[in-house]
């Protein structure tokens, strides 16, 4: 594998680590199966691209993308909390609606960003090559987001969010407004996804309405894969696992693309994803079995 492809995998992995963190927040912390991400990812891309092309500062545009994603998350949560629609269905409704909304925002299915001023442009002007500085800058940004999320989940408000997902009845008995917590958590989660979409569009040259296909699967693969590698005993291990899982997934993809001797091609990626996620789900159980056999395991 060339250095360029390796760093490229890291770069894409870091962008999707934001998606993994978002999926961790919705699926794991809030226990809210959220498919909105397939719509909020291209929404972030659409908002950022459309704004950048009309001359808005790239950083502001990216912030707007975060806000747009958060709004999408709020809609899904509102459908669930106020209209009492099942969370999975509520998220599907929002996702479907966003397809049309994204087309409206962009005005056409593809908004090109090649040659425009993006958040990555300042890094291209540094003495080091872009394919090194971009992953480094992204790494710093994503780690910052991860640390911020760790801090937040340790605050009173963040703990209330965790309780809402862990045991909503008990949470209410402790005075937590679970409706509000759900709205806040979903907004935060999809805001991160919108941010990821904006960054992806800027790094890959265009916002396209098809960007959302399969984002949730990738997010889940990253979260679950990360949990297999780093058991999520505490919050900071879980979020770190999201980062690691996402990057490992992308490296696996890069490996599949680069391993002609195995004969794998990009077409086989869906199968590879399924095998990876399956292995990640089974592996912890296998580890425990072996641990017990050697006498090191802890009784369940």
């Amino acid at each position: 594998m060339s250095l360029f492809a390796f760093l490229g995998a890291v770069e894409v992995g870091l962008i999707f680590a934001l998606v993994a963190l978002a999926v961790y927040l919705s699926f794991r912390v809030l226990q809210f199966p959220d498919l909105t991400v397939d719509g909020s990812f291209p929404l972030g891309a659409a908002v950022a691209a459309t704004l950048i092309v009309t001359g808005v500062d790239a950083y502001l545009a990216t912030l707007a993308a975060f806000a747009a994603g958060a709004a999408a998350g709020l809609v899904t949560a509102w459908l669930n909390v106020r209209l009492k629609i099942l969370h999975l269905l509520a998220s599907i409704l929002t996702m479907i609606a966003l397809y049309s909304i994204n087309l409206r925002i962009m005005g056409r299915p593809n908004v090109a960003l090649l040659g425009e001023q993006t958040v990555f442009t300042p890094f291209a002007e540094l003495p080091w090559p872009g394919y090194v500085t971009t992953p480094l800058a992204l790494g710093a940004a994503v780690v910052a987001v991860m640390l911020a999320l760790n801090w937040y989940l340790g605050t009173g408000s963040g703990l209330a969010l965790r309780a809402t997902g862990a045991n909503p009845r008990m949470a209410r008995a402790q005075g937590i407004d679970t409706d509000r917590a759900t709205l806040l958590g979903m907004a935060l989660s999809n805001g991160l996804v919108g941010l990821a979409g904006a960054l992806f569009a800027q790094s890959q040259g265009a916002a396209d309405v098809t960007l959302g296909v399969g984002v949730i699967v990738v997010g889940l693969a990253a979260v679950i894969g990360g949990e297999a590698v780093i058991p999520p005993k505490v919050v900071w291990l879980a979020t770190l696992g999201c980062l690691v899982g996402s990057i490992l997934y992308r490296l696996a993809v890069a490996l599949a693309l680069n391993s002609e001797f195995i004969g794998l091609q990009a077409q086989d990626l869906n199968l590879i994803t399924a095998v990876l996620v399956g292995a990640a789900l089974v592996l912890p159980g296998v580890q425990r079995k072996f641990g017990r056999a050697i006498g090191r395991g802890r009784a369940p």
Partner: protein
Amino acid sequence: MKALRFAAGVALAGLLAAPALAQTKSVAITQIVEHPALDAARKGVQDELAAAGFTEGQNLKWSFESAQGNPATAAQIAKKFVGDRPDVIVAIATPSAQAVAANTKDIPLVFSAVTDPVGAKLVASLDKPGGNVTGTSDLLPMDQHVGLIRQLLPNAKRVGILFNPGEANSVTSVKQFTDAAKAQGITVVEGAASKSGDVLAAARSLVGKVDAIYVPTDNTVVSAFEAVVKVGTDAKLPVVAGDTDSVKRGAVAALGFDYYDVGRQTGKMVAAILKGGKPADIPVETVKKADLYLNAKTAPAMGVTLPDALLQQAKEVVK
């Protein structure tokens, strides 16, 4: 002794010369999704390169990856290819081309089947691309298509157009068709289908509102073309297509080009670059040759008589 040294010298020279003589060029192709037209284009590139003297396995290293419709995969394919530093990267369809262009400013990129290269910001202008990117655009000469419809139905006033608003190429095609139609006094009614399952309903929605249906080179609608033909025959509504394969599947007429030919046109540009040309100097090409295909079987079923003038012009008439 002298003979040995001489032999060694020849051998060494031979070893050094061999790579220079049989210098292997590498071409990497990235495709957004697999699809008969795009695959045909790829084959066209491959065949043209062979005709120009570049054969896989001998002096050509050929890599191909399809992103299976997944933009993140397209991004990683682009990064892999840029890291491998081939002599030319060929990108089929807009998203794949943009992904490559975002990752390299110096490796030559030749795109194929991109309808609007300027809109996609791949090149500065069609005549002077100016960077490392050039290629072939599958822009359809829409005024000719409108003209074809008028030749079949001289009294047509309204034409329906079926497309997927989510396909960038189609949106451009629809706009150009509508402009060309307006210039020739015809109003256009749009029928949208965002996935192949919606095509039947979209086609039905045009019945009674239009005199003919036109189908551009839209991946979604073309994949469900039989549904459009069914509506056409049931409602006696002539269906005209933008790609020639659809005539075999039931379209009355098509003025199109073969994506294989587009591929070969692209292949010529790739060969030129492999032989030393620079993308910045090679203008973007649009397809010149348009062939007329007619279907004499479905014509009466759709309520149309094929004029002799057209039958004579046709490259192929399906019976």
